[in-house]
């Protein structure tokens, strides 16, 4: 049983306000031989400096940076230790200090958190947060094995050697406990593949039906291939700064709040505990959860995500996520992880997660749309870049720049694609003020919940 003492539950507080002003990205592909890794990061870095309508010359903006946080999931994939030193030098940022961040699938979120802590503490006025992954140096099955070493090597890796096999048992238990149809999971895959069709950066766009998803090959039952993200190559970058610099650079900065939580690497070791309640929740909401034979957090939910949201909502003053948030970008590495997260961040109470999809709230035009970027299933999961990319998508949405960065035919052409004739804008309304993204590792070993708030 996990119990807390007072200090454990202190709500993080920046020493000064932190903002994100600009973002950049590459396209994402399963195989990307055209560019070396540091070249991809340079492309994302230049995209961030040059294309975000900043009020200073790009090299002058670069001249404000005095710290960099770099996210990379696995040295296995890059086959290069200290990759951040190569990248940092390639970006022309020596001898400024940089730190490499590694928290599995949450690496991107942790990288933004690290940059924010540098700014909030006063170490930096302007910090670069960049992330990358190159997963095409090995074949897919070797890549699957590499990723499965992010399960416990003594007690889990040999039992699967593919990460879907660690999520699939959660999917079966979740469906059994909360009576969820496979169709709900399939709808998530349909939605995110479809939204990826509007993104020039997307790796797996597609107009699929629920039947297409359910008829696609099984990876680990019940998860089908169309419900899973893919090996991915690419890079993303975000510029994090203090308030004074933020307004020097743009009239449209977004204030940043971000917190993290962790939980055991092995699902086996999740001992029961009381549910940490979000601001809009009451104990009565969960009195019948044990009747459904669900032991919290069990195999049905992610304590690390709930704890990160528990902190971040209090840090940012979020009272009710469904009412207060205008967009979420969630970590849909698998459809089931997306579904589970709806409860963790309080879009629905635990046990009623499926209603977020079935009600239409999760769709473009819905109450709080989810993964308009195409998410991990549709667009990318170049792991170290993912949490940074999600933040950048949230930033561009709040700055009303979705069309600028997704609808320009030149961007499609730059990445060897042609803008579809039926391209659809997924820009959220100008009234949208707050967006949230979840960066998630392992089977919930590390999770960050970040919130961007449009400046008033």
């Amino acid at each position, binding site marked *: 049983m996990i119990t807390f003492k007072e200090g454990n539950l202190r709500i993080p507080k920046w020493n000064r306000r932190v903002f994100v002003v600009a973002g950049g990205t590459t396209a994402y592909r399963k195989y990307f031989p055209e*560019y070396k890794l540091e070249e991809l990061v340079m492309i994302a870095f230049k995209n961030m400096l040059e294309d975000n309508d900043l009020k200073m010359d790009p090299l002058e903006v670069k001249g404000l940076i005095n710290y960099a946080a770099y996210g990379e999931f696995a040295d296995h994939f890059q086959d290069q230790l200290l990759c951040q030193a190569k990248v940092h030098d390639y970006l022309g940022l020596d001898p400024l200090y940089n730190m490499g961040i590694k928290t599995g699938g949450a690496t991107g979120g942790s990288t933004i958190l690290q940059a924010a802590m540098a700014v909030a503490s006063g170490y930096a006025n302007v910090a670069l947060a960049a992330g990358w992954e190159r997963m095409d140096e090995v074949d897919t099955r070797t890549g699957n094995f590499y990723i499965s070493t992010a399960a416990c090597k003594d007690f889990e890796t040999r039992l699967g050697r593919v990460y879907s096999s660690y999520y699939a*048992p*959660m999917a079966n238990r979740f469906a059994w406990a909360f009576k969820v149809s496979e169709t709900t999971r399939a709808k998530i895959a349909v939605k995110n593949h479809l939204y990826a069709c509007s993104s020039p950066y997307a790796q797996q766009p597609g107009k699929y039906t629920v039947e297409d998803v359910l008829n696609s090959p099984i990876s680990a039952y019940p998860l089908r291939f169309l419900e899973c993200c893919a090996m991915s190559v690419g890079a993303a970058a975000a510029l994090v700064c203090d308030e004074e610099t933020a307004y020097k650079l743009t009239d449209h900065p977004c204030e940043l709040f971000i917190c993290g939580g962790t939980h055991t690497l092995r699902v*086996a070791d*999740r*001992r029961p505990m009381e549910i940490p309640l979000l601001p809009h929740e009451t104990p009565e909401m969960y009195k019948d959860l044990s009747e459904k034979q669900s032991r919290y957090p069990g195999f049905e939910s992610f304590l690390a995500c709930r704890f990160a949201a528990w902190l971040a909502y209090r840090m940012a003053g979020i009272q009710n996520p469904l009412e207060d948030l205008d967009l979420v970008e969630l970590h849909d590495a698998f459809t089931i992880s997306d579904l589970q997260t709806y409860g963790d961040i309080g879009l629905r109470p635990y046990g009623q997660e499926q209603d977020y999809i079935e009600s239409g709230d999760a769709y473009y035009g819905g109450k709080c749309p989810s993964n308009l970027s195409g998410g991990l299933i549709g667009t990318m999961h170049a792991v170290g870049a993912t949490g940074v990319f999600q933040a950048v998508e949230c930033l561009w949405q709040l700055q009303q720049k979705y069309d600028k960065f997704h609808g320009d035919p030149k961007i499609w052409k730059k990445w060897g694609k042609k803008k579809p004739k039926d391209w659809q804008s997924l820009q959220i309304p100008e009234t949208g003020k707050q967006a949230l993204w979840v960066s998630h590792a392992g089977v919930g070993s590390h999770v960050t919940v970040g919130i961007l708030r449009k400046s008033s």
Partner: protein
Amino acid sequence: MVQTKFIGQVTKVRQSEPATVIEWPRSITHIHTYGMLSPFFQGLKEGKLRATFCPNKNCPENGLWIPPRAHCPDCHTEMKWKTLRNPVIGTIHTFTQVVYAGIGIELSTPYWQIDVEIPGLATIPKSYLLYGDPHIGMKVKAEFRTKNPTNTVLDYYWVPYEK
């Protein structure tokens, strides 16, 4: 004068356009210790399922641990070992059929990976079902690969249990 020679293997070029891509094969052996958990893996070879427990009577956690831990995460006391009495009967908490597996998989696919509730345990360890079709709530019995052990966690598995 001694001249340095190239003694490696000539690198194969996989493709030349749009960029030069080479292959770099290698074979690696890791030397891995089971440390203080060695009795667990030794026990499997002897047909015994061993768990650890915290001997501190003031510790809030009095359940058994599989996977075992050498130290209690709650009070940091060094754990003690307990051998579960055979037959060890468990209940399937959840399961999956692994159809597509990563490189090096040591079990023939497809196979059933199961998570098993064992009486007295604080944890729900992952393992595999040797045969049969699992469902949540199904009773299963632990068996051991005492002949030709793999010296890994694969040395115990479960079979359907019917009284």
